[in-house]
């Protein structure tokens, strides 16, 4: 079964830990990422209603931390995610979660 990262972006605070944890684990240079943060907002779309969301997205350099998974560890970005909003799951599980929950996205390589 294909695995991917499920990101509950409602909670992503834009803290950069996933970006840097991936760089550290994979030895990537400054400016290259396995996971990259994107910011949408802030703007006020109605009185006191703000669009302000971060979306971490996977890049070509993500390998889903196969080496860590093999020894029973979480992927580096998942473990270090400060808001606890990334998990690694199989695509079949993801389908169930997407049916039930809002503000989640699932990314495969």
């Amino acid at each position, binding site marked *: 079964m294909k695995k991917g990262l*499920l990101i*509950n972006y*409602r*909670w992503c*605070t*834009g*803290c*950069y*830990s996933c*970006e*840097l*944890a991936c*760089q*550290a*684990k994979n030895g990537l240079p*400054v*400016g290259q990422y396995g996971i990259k943060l994107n910011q949408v*907002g*802030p*703007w*006020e779309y109605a009185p*006191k209603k*703000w669009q*302000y969301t*971060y979306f971490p997205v996977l890049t070509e350099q993500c390998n889903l931390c196969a080496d860590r998974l093999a*020894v029973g560890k*979480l992927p*580096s970005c998942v*473990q*270090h*995610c*400060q*808001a*606890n*909003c990334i*998990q690694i799951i199989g695509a079949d599980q993801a389908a169930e*979660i997407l049916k*039930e*929950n809002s503000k*989640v996205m699932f990314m495969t390589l």
Partner: protein
Amino acid sequence: MSKSQSSASLQSRDTVKADRVKYNSRGLAFFEHEQPWRYEEDGYQVTRGSAWSAPGCHLGCGVLIYSKDDKVVRVEGDPENPYNQGRLCPRCVAVDDIVNNERRISHPLKRSLDDRGKDRWERISWEEALDTIEQRFNTYKQQHGAESVVFLQGTGRDIAAYISRLAWSFGSPNYAFSLTNVACFGPRIFASTMLAGTFMVGDYSQQFIDRYDNPAWEAPALTVVWGNNPIVANSDGAYGHWVTDVLQRGSKLLVVDARLTWLAAHADLWLQVRPGSDGALALGIAHVLIEEGLCDDEFTSLWVYGLEEYAQMVAEWTPEKTSEVTWVSPEDIRAAARLLGQNSPALLQWGVALDQREDCVDGSRAVLSLFALTGNIEKPGTMIVGPELLKYITGWGRDLLSFDAEDKRIGTEELMFYKLALQVASMNRLIDHMIEQPDDYPIKASWIQTVNQIACGGADNERTLEAFSKLEFNVIVDLFMTPTAMAYGDLFLPVTTYTERNGIRCGDGTQRGETINAAVSPLGECRSDMEINLELGRRFNSEAWPWETVEEMFSHIMADTGMDFEGVREIAPSYLPFEYEKFKSGKMREDGQLGFQTPSGRLELYSQGLGFLGYDPLPNYVEPPMTPYSQPELAAEYPLVLTTGARRHNTFHSENRQGSRLRALHPEPTVQIHPQTAASLGVQDGEWVWVEGPVGLTGRTARAKRVAEVTPIVDPRVVSSDHGWWHPEADPEKLYDVNELNINNLISWSSGQTGIGANYKCLLCKIYPCREGEQS
């Protein structure tokens, strides 16, 4: 759904394997780890320990340091540590950028007095460095008294205790926190102590080894984040993302902040307060709580003192009047009171913004009083008094200082707070004193450890530079050559990072027992701060420093726990027993009576302690000295309200500018300006601008350079800047550009009435584009 799991987070973190929690004979809970504190994994050496400092913040997260061939390769969060649960902020994730940084100083240096400001350092041996310091400090002591040598620290980290002991064992009462008017954390501790007899923190279950699964704990129904951006700041012992943890467990969120932070954007209610007017806002909220019967009457009738006086004081603070002062609408003030009155348990996550206006204790008290009024004290999910392992916050070794020496402590004559409630000298009065150099009390030398005063941790560089240039001998102890060392250091001692040294860690607010464990050998000849202070302390006063090694010293400090350094290292982190509502069982008072350690035994909304010190017992609001209302004439020329010290993910105060991965996240200092304001000033996003304003009431002005960030997160009348800036890559003889980058140049060294709190968060300024050639 279990407590540790919610549909919102869609995920649970398996932090505590309950079967591995054990208890020792003193009731300390600890882990039986599968691995020893140091082990091999896949060709790496892994060292488990606490990340406390340098570099680093106030938290000391649990880390696993991966090293190879005696070199740090990377640092990971320790998934077994209940504190951070495997997580880390970017600063520790990329700490190898700092540890292995080519700019680190690796051996002691000296420079002749005539060469201050010039990059003319000469390498010397440790023997020569320590001999010189011993001989010169002792000579000043003989000629002018021990008080002529001052001992200065930066923000409180584990080294603070050893700096205080060095000062006091030498015989000098002039040990000080280098920041203007101790304007960080201390004022909140003080305010809380006046109200409750002790310091209180929000209950995120951090006192329990099993955290969110502990059966006694309850998630707050409301989290109030006030003057703090916890998810970026990680301040004062609270791991910032505990806030998202409790939101994921159902808590509502009220944010009081001058800026729209990410939390504010996702809050149930955000109050965009005018910088510096937080105290007034709290009085307005109290007004509504009382008027609408939203207080916890049963609790206040039993445990609160001075409610009547308090109610009289807030009577005038109608939402309408409060709105004029704070710029928050009357509807939102009412809504905030109802949120707080109708959602219990509630906790307060308060921040340094409350400390950073002159004479700030009233504001912090007014905010905390809201939690006393609503009974959110010592219940699960409210404000609690954490267990204390070691009493270290007030310094270590005070008994070594004679009464005669204590009488000479600078600041105690004029400032009652310093005389009766603090153990430090007033840095502001020290600066005055260093400049004036009275014949009968000259200041000759300084010991400057863990602080980069002219980039951060100080004010008004012109005056700071003048003060330290009058001293004959300044010793700097740091990781890197800093603007401060370059400006007036005469001797430089290089220290290790936390990955290269041992230490102990017990935490702020709620304490736990941990150790800092060296993973690799020190760079070059670097020594740990503690080794340096032990060696030097021994030379000054061998009786006060009887230990052969720092590890022996650590074991002595933790003797009360029944364990030694090596013992704690194996089982860390260890947790003390904890119970709620200690005021109902006599455990909050020294005499064992019920209630709180205050004169009345209750939570004092009307503080008898402050009255005794000669201050207002009630937290009446006083307009800060540098605002459009208190300085209308200055405001005509400097129309914008400036708030400084906005935290960034990649830096801790003046640290971390050297690391390439960290620097890349936020490479230059910024000032956030509303789009409307930027348009009217003709300022473009990304453009270099000058932020210029009066230096307090000195009559002088100063300016600092910033990149404009045009963003709607600030009010059009307010601009917000980060702090601590210098350019390690710039010319050392231009002091790494610090004079044009330091926003603290706009802060004066004024003491105010109390000598507590400084106006970092509420200043006046104007903004204009840099000219050709001034950019970058």
